[in-house]
């Protein structure tokens, strides 16, 4: 069956949404929420998108896309360029290598997987930051941020599954 121009355009636009949503989460993560004590431990939203789409649709969120998302995160958050880019790419690599394991698993397992991946990402970010600045940043804050990130994951995961089943169902 030959697709019309508009049908093809529709598929392309739908296909880039995982990448686009990841970038949106990077930007949303920068919005000041004015909640006392929240800024220091704000969840790392883009990591959840990287994890989710790498498990379910790595074809739509390739490594180069998470690299770019990581660079944007670095640029906007004021962190040294390359740290989040490296962490996101390594997360992508780790998740792709375990894809067979993740296939068809229940949400609890996916969540548990995320808690491990996020722990790895936090430690990596902490170490890279420490090496870059030759000084240790507060590990306590990093740990609380990790807990908040893992805690928020189900909400975002649910939204992303919805998106996947509606917008990306035909791709």
């Amino acid at each position: 069956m030959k697709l019309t121009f508009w049908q093809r355009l529709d598929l392309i636009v739908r296909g880039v949404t995982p990448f686009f949503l990841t970038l949106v989460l990077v930007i949303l993560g920068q919005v000041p929420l004015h909640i006392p004590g929240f800024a220091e431990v704000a969840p790392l939203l883009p990591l959840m998108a990287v994890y989710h789409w790498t498990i379910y649709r790595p074809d739509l969120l390739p490594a180069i896309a998470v690299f770019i998302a990581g660079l944007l995160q670095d640029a906007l958050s004021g962190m040294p360029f390359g740290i989040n880019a490296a962490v996101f790419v390594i997360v992508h690599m780790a998740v792709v290598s375990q894809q067979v394991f993740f296939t068809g698993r229940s949400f609890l397992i996916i969540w548990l997987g995320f808690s491990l991946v996020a722990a790895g990402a936090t430690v990596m970010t902490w170490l890279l930051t420490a090496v870059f600045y030759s000084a240790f940043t507060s590990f306590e804050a990093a740990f609380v941020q990790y807990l908040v990130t893992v805690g928020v994951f189900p909400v975002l995961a649910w939204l992303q599954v919805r998106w996947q089943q509606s917008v990306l169902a035909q791709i």
Partner: protein
Amino acid sequence: MKNRQHLGHHISHPDKGVASRFGYLGLVLAAFALMLLGKADAGMMERVRASISDGVAPVLDVLSRPAANLDRMVDEFAALSNLRAENARLRSENQRLIEWQAAARKLAAENNQLKGLLNLAPVAEPGFITGRVVGDSGGAFVHSVLVSAGARNGVSKGQAVITGDGLVGRVHGVGSRASRVLLVTDLNSHIPVVVEATRTRAILAGDNSDRPRLIHLPPGASVSTGDRIVTSGHGGAFPPGIPVGVVALHGDGGIAIKPFVHRDRLEFVRVVDYGLRGILDVAPVGALGTPGAGGQK
């Protein structure tokens, strides 16, 4: 179920073996190269960052408004519910302030007289540039915010950023319409301060916790809990006398300061254009009369 079928479909073509390994290696190496480049030529990376921030700032400006409005509504609701208590508190505070006002007037007059006697050269009046905080990355690894005022508004690197409560931080990177402010709590923030009462000089160093520490105190200096810390003005980057915080903890772990400014309350900030060059440029020390060597690194 539908989801699972989908998954099976995509398992059949995972990224293609060796080629993808090289792809990952390339990207990770690129990321590390960027980190090294950032170490070697921080200025260039800051310019790249500034232009990206400039591009995203208008979007963030729009996105940050609902959150700020909601915050204000919550505040006003809370204020309504304890109007009476607040009113009583303000009355007694007003009483106290009137007494302070009288004292301040007397001191100002006396100060003016003494300045006249000493023939003191007047210090330049600072100008202010007001900006909204449109981006707060959050996170434990960096303490900085994005402000919607940039080079075209007259912001330049090294300027002090304040609110009515006290010092927020200093301008770290400037784009044309947005600038990045390094908070006093950031790991890279080092600000020359004095203990207000004793005039003991020190450096306020952030460590990415919400309690920055006083370091480089002169030997034998005594600091006690509750002492106010203000900027010293040494080094020429900051105007002197901006309130920073109070000594919160004084023990073996060092002297922790509780800043007056709360990161989560930041909405509008003022960039102080003091007419002095930043600490990173050549500070015109001679113009100040006394060489502020103590504040120079």
